[in-house]
């Protein structure tokens, strides 16, 4: 028995700390703990038992030292335990390693048809401008499709060479609409003025399928009828939606044209989206791309639908949805649109 209990305690602390800190796993750590201070046969326990035979004045001091030692050793053991637990967790998870590039392919979402995507984008622009989206049947009466639109009887569009006629009712009186304009007539007949509407939809013409034509295609038309609507408003509106659809820098221009249902009538063009107006293959070198037709609603159309042309004026415009899709996506042949090949559909 040495006479230097403080020295003995220091030595015990050094040895026990070293043992605890080097414990290889949780079991070894438990063993070290027991050996160091938990077991009754540990040196710590021995020293504690010896306190009884120590002089009372020393007993208090040594007792305090021993208690402090136990506290410190417990801290060391806890620290070591936490470290070992973390290491064990890392090891366990590492065993669950997964190569994330070896995952078998699952189901992908389908894609909306290009025409739908373009149509919805166009609709959204006009909804944003406060327009309603109007729709109507694809099979229509000759009256709504031609007469009400001031299209004369001898107009080539009415010929069976250009328009599909349906076997229904009076012969040659019902047809597959060659434009969405009959919906304009429905809107005017509805009698709710003013009108701010666009009409997207499927249309039919007797065009032999080729890279730029299909007998079935899609159009969007606009109709605005209000008090005091002017040609200047038409120009501004075309400019607004073309910039909204094709980008801020796009310019538009109008040139005179002839449509029976509008007067004055115009074709509208936009600066080429590919070259910006410098001239390229897309715009055939002229810097402008023809988009569609427009004009001030002909008073005869108002008269046919019971709207007073003295009180109301309006404009209309129309263009092809499919054409915008092929232009925007660089599609060389329109026929790919109806093949429904998933290798094509899945691209957009």
């Amino acid at each position, binding site marked *: 028995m040495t006479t230097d209990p403080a020295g003995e305690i220091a030595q015990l602390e050094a040895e026990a700390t070293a043992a605890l800190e080097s414990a290889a796993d949780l079991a070894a750590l438990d063993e070290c703990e027991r050996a160091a201070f938990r077991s009754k046969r540990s040196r710590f326990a021995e020293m504690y038992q010896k306190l009884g035979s120590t002089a009372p004045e020393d007993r208090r001091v040594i007792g305090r030292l021993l208690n402090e030692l136990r506290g410190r050793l417990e801290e060391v053991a806890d620290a070591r335990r936490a470290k070992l637990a973390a290491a064990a967790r890392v090891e366990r998870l590492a065993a669950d390693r997964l190569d994330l590039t070896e995952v078998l392919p699952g*189901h*992908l*979402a*389908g*894609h*909306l*048809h290009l025409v*739908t995507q373009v149509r*919805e984008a166009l609709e959204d622009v*006009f*909804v944003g*401008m*406060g*327009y*309603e*989206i109007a*729709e109507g*049947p*694809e*099979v229509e*009466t000759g009256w709504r499709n031609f007469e009400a639109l001031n299209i004369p009887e*001898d107009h*080539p569009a009415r*010929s*069976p060479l250009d328009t*599909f*006629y*349906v*076997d*229904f*009712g009076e012969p*040659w009186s019902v047809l*597959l609409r060659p434009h969405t304009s009959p919906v304009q007539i429905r809107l005017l007949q509805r009698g709710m003025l003013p009108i*701010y509407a666009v009409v997207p939809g*499927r249309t*039919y013409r007797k065009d*032999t399928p080729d890279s730029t034509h299909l007998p*079935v295609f899609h159009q969007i038309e606009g109709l*605005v009828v*209000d008090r005091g609507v*002017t*040609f*200047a*408003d038409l*120009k*501004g*509106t075309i400019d607004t939606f073309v910039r909204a659809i094709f980008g801020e820098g796009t310019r538009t*221009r109008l*040139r*005179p044209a*002839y449509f029976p249902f509008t*007067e*004055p009538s*115009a074709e509208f063009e936009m600066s080429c989206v590919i070259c910006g107006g410098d001239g390229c293959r897309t715009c055939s070198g002229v810097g402008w791309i023809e988009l569609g037709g427009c004009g001030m609603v002909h*008073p005869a159309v108002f008269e046919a639908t019971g709207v007073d042309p003295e009180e109301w*004026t309006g404009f209309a415009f129309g263009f092809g949805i499919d054409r915008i899709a092929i232009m925007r996506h660089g599609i060389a042949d329109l026929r790919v649109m109806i*093949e*429904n*090949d998933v*290798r094509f559909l899945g691209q957009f």
Partner: protein
Amino acid sequence: MRVPLSWLRELTPLETRPTDRTEVAALAADLDALGLVVEGVEKVGEGLRDVVLARVLEIAAIAKADKIRRVVVDAGGSEPVEVVCGAWNFDVGDLVVLAPVGAVLPGEFRIEQRRMRGVISNGMLCSGRELRLSEDHEGILVLGRDGGQAGTARPAGPETAARPAGPRTAAGPDAGPELGLPLADYLGAAFEPDVVFDLAIEGNRPDCLCVAGIARDIGARLGLPLRLPEPVVEGGPEPARSYASVEVLAPELCHRLIGKVLLGVTSVASPAVIGRRLTLAGMRPIDSIVDASNYVMLELGQPTHPYDLDRLGGHGLRVRAARPGEEIVTLDGVTRVLGTRPAKSDDSYAGSDCLICDADDRPVGIGGVMGGQSSEITTEASRVLLEVGYFVPLAIARTARRVGLRSEASVRFERGVDPNGMERAALRFCELVIAASRSAGVAPPVVASGLLDAHPVPYAPRRIRVRTERVGALLGIELQDAEIGELLEPLGFVTGLPANTAASGVLQVEMPSFRPDVRREVDVAEEVARRIGYQELPTSQRRSPYVGRLTDLQSLRRRLKRILAGLGAHEAWTMSIVEPRDQARGGVAGPLVTLLNPMVTEESALRGGLLPGLLGALRHNVDHRHPAVRLFEIGDVFALPREPIAGSQEDRELPEEWELVGLLLADFDDDAGAAVNAWRVIADALRLEGAELRPAVRAGLHPARTAEIVACDIVLGVVGEVDPETLLEYDLVHTWAGWLELDLLKLAAAPRRPLVARPVSRFPSSDVDLAFVVADSVPAAAIEAALGQAAGELCESVVLFDIYRGAGVREGSRSLAYRLRFCALERTLTDGEVAELRSQCIAAVERQFQATLRG
């Protein structure tokens, strides 16, 4: 309409030079801005100074070459020139055109020395097309045979076009043209560099189907005067009426017919400039008489027709309606039957055809469309009767369509010629024929004095009142009365104040006789807009007073598309015009709506369903090795109404048309189950309530694996599997494929759970699992419904989680295992309560379905 710049400049003093690219582009932009859309700008007459006259000295074969020969020509130089040539249409002694090395032909084509089959070629002998003188590319251009004439016949080809009239044609073998002379000098001024504008003229602008009309429009834009030809023809001693007569018996078809008689006419080649212009405008020069008629039409827009007066019975013309079935052989040698209705027609064909007869009433031409063969001008013609008519546009359109003949004349008549321009056209014709004779050195014809004139319907000028303020308001500009007059007068409009009003702000506008398109105030507004320039007019913003939004149906359609895409389906677009046979093959029975005039005989109907189109699309993908796909389409389908359209159905103006949603599931293992689950996703997303599946039989679908989707006794659609036989019909490899079809409108109207929030319990819930052995004939949905009812309000959910057939379960039955979850909003349920509910559920199912609880 092809318009040579030189011709345009003759009628309005444009400063545009054909050789200046920038000036030509500026003129094209001005034409565009007027709505005279420039579809092409063609430079002609280039390179004619680089090529020279040469005479063929020698032609020799080249070893091992059977397509090309060695040709030696004398091009006026000290040495003959040797070239290789692939043409065979010439002989030694012929006068040809040589492009020597260094020459640049139209299209920036530079001639260089080349070696072919070991022979060096020092240039090229040119064809008419290579020089852009004609379309001829069959051989090279031969200007003279054997040192002289271009041939004995009068071919209407490039030789005629390219050969100037006048002294040069008289050149015989002894006084041949100088070899080495640039072709441009040989051809003369008519072949100076020029520009041809190819203009698309809108259907309402017949006045611009001639050079004068275009000159008027462009001149007005550029502030230049219009210089119409003012032909002066000296009349002969005898009046025209002593030689011939004209009469109109059908004023409803022809408002006026005038005639001019030319005596002692010798048909010659037209002067070079006339031939050249006709060629550039796209017409073939024939002879001075036909050319003059065509030239007048292109210049002034008035078609005319020259007759051989001596072949006209009774020396006169009579216009009358054709009798049904009357026949005539037209100039093109085709027999045309008039006055009959074609098999397929509408009422716009009703009405008679306008026939031109001689004074003996024998047909000699279809009025305004084409002349007849019987009185065609021949080279011997010495007395010509020129017919100039105003035919009623609608009648001509009808006749042209009926006989299937659209001529340059009919196009102009059916859109409307200038009723006040007929006399000018007649005189211009005479002037041109006389000029051609003088130019060719033959005696000019004598024009009988006076006019033959049958004028049953005089032209009445159209006048309308135009409100200045209204025109301005339509265009969005401020306008003064005087401005409208200033803008419109150069276009031939006459404006003034109406006689009966003193107020300003209202104008009386008289339309020019050549502008049938201008009828109303708005038409005048368009003219004002065109004159100001669409680009120059102001731009303003007009705001909608409404809040823009999609309708519920449109939102639903968009939502469904995204749900279906989320289920892995691509959106398809299949044709709405289909083969009835294919519809039947895909189970769509109809009655289909058919087309009166299909483009392809087989594709004669409108689709009555979506399945055939989607199966076709699947077929396409299988063919391209993508058999495992899901496709959907949302679109309209059509059917004839099932009830006959009679009596009560009279007000039905259109066949039935409704919008369907179709989903074809053909991924691996896709079957009716996949379709049902797709339906459940939709039903859940839309909060549909009370929709049931009822077994159903539908053509094209599996008879034992198909159900109708019914809500409130309304069939929303159908779900199940495609009939395996239908899959076979489409030659598909799939064993099965799921199918879901919904009626969009009915789906939109189907009852939905209210959007009022239902509280969820915060207390623990208790699950009860129950398995019953039930006969196969009892639908699982019935068990589920019975459980739900018996479990009462404390039941949170009933879920089928297992189905078992096999050992321990009797044949013809299956075990259905359900998990019922119970909970109360305010408390935890006691074991006793749950046990009680369990017993109620078991009792209900056992009692109703003769089911037994599986232990």
